């Protein structure tokens, strides 16, 4: 209902264009999408080298099929630092965000990557067919 999927038993003469806050709540907070963000963070941790910029390039490639611009990389770097600071202030949130352990990866880094993944998976460029 939130995304207005038409009833597949009936003809649909016009699919309505929608863009409501309910969709935003769904994509930000639904456990399914949150788990997808956790999954993306896990994949980025496993499949790219340890440097932030390498991880970011890989995450952009996986989600958007392109590299981040210099400005985007800078903004994401700032967000990563900010998230590390937030997680440092309330360490009990780290394991809630990222319950797994990956050898050689500090758990707090992986947890911060869950947050970066949530941004990527909520970008208009990711949600909308370009």
């Amino acid at each position, binding site marked *: 209902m939130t995304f207005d999927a038409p009833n597949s038993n009936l003809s649909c003469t016009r699919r309505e264009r929608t863009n*409501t*806050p*309910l969709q935003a709540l769904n994509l930000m907070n*639904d456990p399914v999408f949150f788990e997808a963000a956790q999954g993306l963070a896990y994949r980025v941790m496993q499949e790219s080298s340890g440097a932030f910029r390498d991880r970011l390039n890989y995450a952009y490639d996986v989600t958007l099929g392109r590299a981040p611009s210099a400005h985007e990389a800078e903004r994401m770097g700032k967000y990563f630092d900010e998230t590390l600071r937030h997680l440092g202030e309330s360490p009990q949130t780290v394991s809630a965000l990222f319950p797994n352990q990956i050898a050689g990866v500090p758990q707090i880094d992986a947890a911060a990557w869950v947050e970066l993944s949530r*941004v990527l998976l909520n970008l208009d460029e990711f949600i909308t067919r370009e």
Partner: protein
Amino acid sequence: MDREQFRRIQTRRSFFQECAGGVGIMALAQLMEQEGRGAALDVNPLAPKPPHFAPKAKNVIFMFMEGGPSQIDLFDPKPGLEKWSGKPLPPSMTKDLRLAFTKPNAAVLASPRKFQPYGKSGIEFSDYIPHIGSCADDLCLVRSMFTDAFNHHPGQLLLFGGSIQVGRPTMGAWVLYGLGSESQNLPGFVVLGSGVGTSGGTSNWSSGFLPSTYRGVVLRSSGDPVLYLSNPPGVTRDMQRAELDALKDLNQEHYAETGDVEIASRISSYELAFRMQMAGPELLDFSKESPETLEMYGVKDGPTKQFATNCLLARRMVERGVRFVMLTDASWDDHTDLNRKLKRHCDAADQPTAALIKDLKQRGLLDSTLVVWGGEFGRTPMVEIRDPRDENNAGRDHHPLAYSMFLAGGGIRGGQVIGKTDELCMNVVEDRVHVHDLQATILHCLGLEHTRLTYHHMGRDFRLTDVAGNVVGKMLG
């Protein structure tokens, strides 16, 4: 060709971005011009805007009784039908009749309903809607509505979009576009449904060719009205805010590149979602409502429960600045078994409707809230028997030529009846009110001149009332 090059030539947005002269920038400039704003990117399309003239109403609650409630059994007593009962209509009434599937030679069906006058105004209502009757002195009952559309979806499109074609912006979207939203934390146009769902569905609250930010936001009718108001585990409110800041910056960069206004809509819907995470639970929490209020609406249990919950939410939304609330109740499309089905609809809707009007009044909100109640058309004076073996199964067919609606509150003079139908309720004989006239009047109550509320699209200015509509002066207070 590498992937970057491929991406650049194959996407819709890249087309806008790469086009010589910049189609995207043109589209953006046009939008800014229409919105009467400078070319700043960080515009809020929902910011409050002044009306054309001083309004009486600030908010609208449109109670849409989908399917076509039977005016003959609720609002427009026709003792004259008794005389004709069981016989076909006089030929003078049917010779030019062109209705898609109504049988013009069907027998007339008198109403078994008892009507009585209510209040000082003495307006008559049927025994199925005593609660609505008790509000008579606040109601402007229009017995002379007519429409162009014979079937549900076109009728609903005409009522809400001003045209029987799909794709137009709807009343709530136009109002939000014209006036913006007073609420920072809730959507400006909210839809609440009860019953089986409307045949017009999303096209009844569509933003059409207006930016999708003006579209109605539908709350769920069972369980939690809004889902996912809580953050995921481990995400604090500060972290959620930081995430949205990053998201906004990156989306804004993309918006600046492409000029696609839907990205601006996306940004504002995420920001609104964040604020709704705080405001939503407060809106939905009835624990501070008095037991008398809950009792009056019928929120607790029984047949009123669902519609009453929506009515109470409507009042709470109006209090919190939601501009346009649409309550849809479906379906009043009683082709068969009219007496029993109509009773069921009325048992669900009568008490909550009256409670909402009285509650708005006692809180001083009725003066600034316009309440509209009715369907997309009415029902025939003739009988419809879909199963000839069961005559008790009688219903009525669709009737666009004459039907009733009522209005109350901001800008409307209560305690009066507008218009008159003939002896059999076949046609309107006095003060005909077309759907476009109703729309013009609703906009007028909100301080909007219906001919000036326009949006340029496909080479011309469009408006809710299409190329018609006159404000019905008699309705106004």
